[in-house]
């Protein structure tokens, strides 16, 4: 398969830009680990004061360009979403990633994340792309639990 189908320029850029990189104390960080390669991420989702909206995401970690770009792009696209919006968005992203090239991420809905569409054809890399998302869902769940 063509390498360029996987590594679009946006991905290579975000692998360096890493939007949201750098963790502050507090909140409910989630640590996720990919045992096959040893990649890891620690990520904290911040909510607005009323607890309805994602106000920020911070993360640190190391990993391949796909995992780093996916985290960076996620932060670029999802901050400002309400929790249900994010959940739907994350489900859509996951579905596309798992589709083995059947479902592309539409640019209209997913913005620059559409650049990750190619990942779904590289089954071994889907986990890389999902690492930050699993961490975000987990941190969100921990945060909401704390509000109850």
């Amino acid at each position, binding site marked *: 398969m063509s390498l360029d189908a996987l590594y679009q320029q946006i991905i290579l850029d975000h692998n360096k830009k890493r939007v949201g990189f750098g963790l502050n104390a507090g909140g409910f960080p989630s640590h996720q*680990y990919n*045992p*096959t*390669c040893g990649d890891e991420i620690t990520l904290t989702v911040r909510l607005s004061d009323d607890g309805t909206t994602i106000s920020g995401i911070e993360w640190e970690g190391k990993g391949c360009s796909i995992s780093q770009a996916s985290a960076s792009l996620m932060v670029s696209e999802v901050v400002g979403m309400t929790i249900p919006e994010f959940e739907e968005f994350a489900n859509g992203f996951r579905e596309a990633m798992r589709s083995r090239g059947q479902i592309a991420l539409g640019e209209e809905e997913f913005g620059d994340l559409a650049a990750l569409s190619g990942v779904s054809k*590289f*089954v*071994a*890399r889907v986990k890389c792309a999902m690492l930050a998302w699993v961490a975000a869902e987990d941190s969100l769940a921990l945060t909401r639990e704390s509000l109850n």
Partner: protein
Amino acid sequence: MFTSAESAAIRAEFPEIAESVGGVPLVYLDTAATSLRPRVAVEFESDFALRHTAAVNRGAHTLAAEATEAFDAARESVAGFVGARPSNLVFTSNATESINLVALAIRLASATGAGGRFSLREGDEIVVTEAEHHANLIPWQEVAHQTGAVLRVAPVTDDGVLEVGAVTALLSERTKVVAFGAVSNVLGIVNPVAEVVGAAKETGALVLIDACQAAAHGPIDVTAWGADFVAFSAHKMYGPTAIGALWGASATLAEMPVVLTGGSMITRVDYDSSDYLPAPAKFEPGTPRLTQAIGWAESLRYIESVGFERIAEHERELGAHLYDAVAAIAGVTLLGTNSEVDRVGLVSFTVDGVHPHDVGQVLDSRGIAARVGHHCAQPLHKRLGVGASTRFSLGMYSTLEDVNLAAAVLAEVRDYFGEA
């Protein structure tokens, strides 16, 4: 039963059936020991080995990713075949290792005392039955020796039947493990699995079913039994040697301590400790049984293409004929003589005045491959008052001609040794 045309088509798929033994055609009546192999599955496996070999779960290159997918798909097929989800199915070397995995988890947990339900101590009890295969007896004996737990043995009746009451009479709050076979490999008798499991679960004991003989002769649903563990082997299901499975209930597998450790079952490894993946990876360290899983799944696909219900029906009818034919021979005594109970196509018997080795030799001289000895069930033989026996067992490729020839030759045995 299968029509002759159906049988012929099935037999054509098993090349060994067409072999001859010392110049006479083979009549394979030893399927309960190990089943013959369908060509389609063996060839699929060898083609995979020759063209798709790669490291599973460890590589990112295309071949490795494809091998991993194929391996996962094989696990899904095998699990689906017995009504399970793939995450509950641990691959092992054979049913013996499956049972040992549980027994070892118990021994390891008991050594430190920190293993919840897996931790046994003096005064606890383990319940098995008189009809167990050595594989489902000796591991428990070793658990008992180490922990001080008591091994209690539920009796069978004189005609070999395991009554539910024989097990329930032994159950109490001291019972920590109940392990028994779904189908006896000596008697062919189908045990009342669900009833025994139901009673055993009430004590909170870990319940393990040895489904070696059950899984090969008709559809089973491991979840419907309600046990904690079910063990079985590929090589008795027309699959390859060197692979078997331990099915475990989700909560039980989560609670069960690791036994074998190493690569591919970890997340983080430091010198002082390591973190483990969830089941099934937790119990499968090292390079997995890749081509064997592929080959097993393909064998099961072949079984399904013929129709497992139809195979079961064929074997049941042929088995009844076998039972009657052997029972009718003068001087031949069946083990397990209750005609009321459900059984698979398998009979064990003794021949008055002729040792099983000698019986087997006469059969062998006519191409009939039967098993002689104690069939890894010395205690059951002792219980039934015999030292050893001869066993005929059927598979999907067995025919009425096989059964008739076996009965005819068997009828001549005593005469040959001057006993008739």
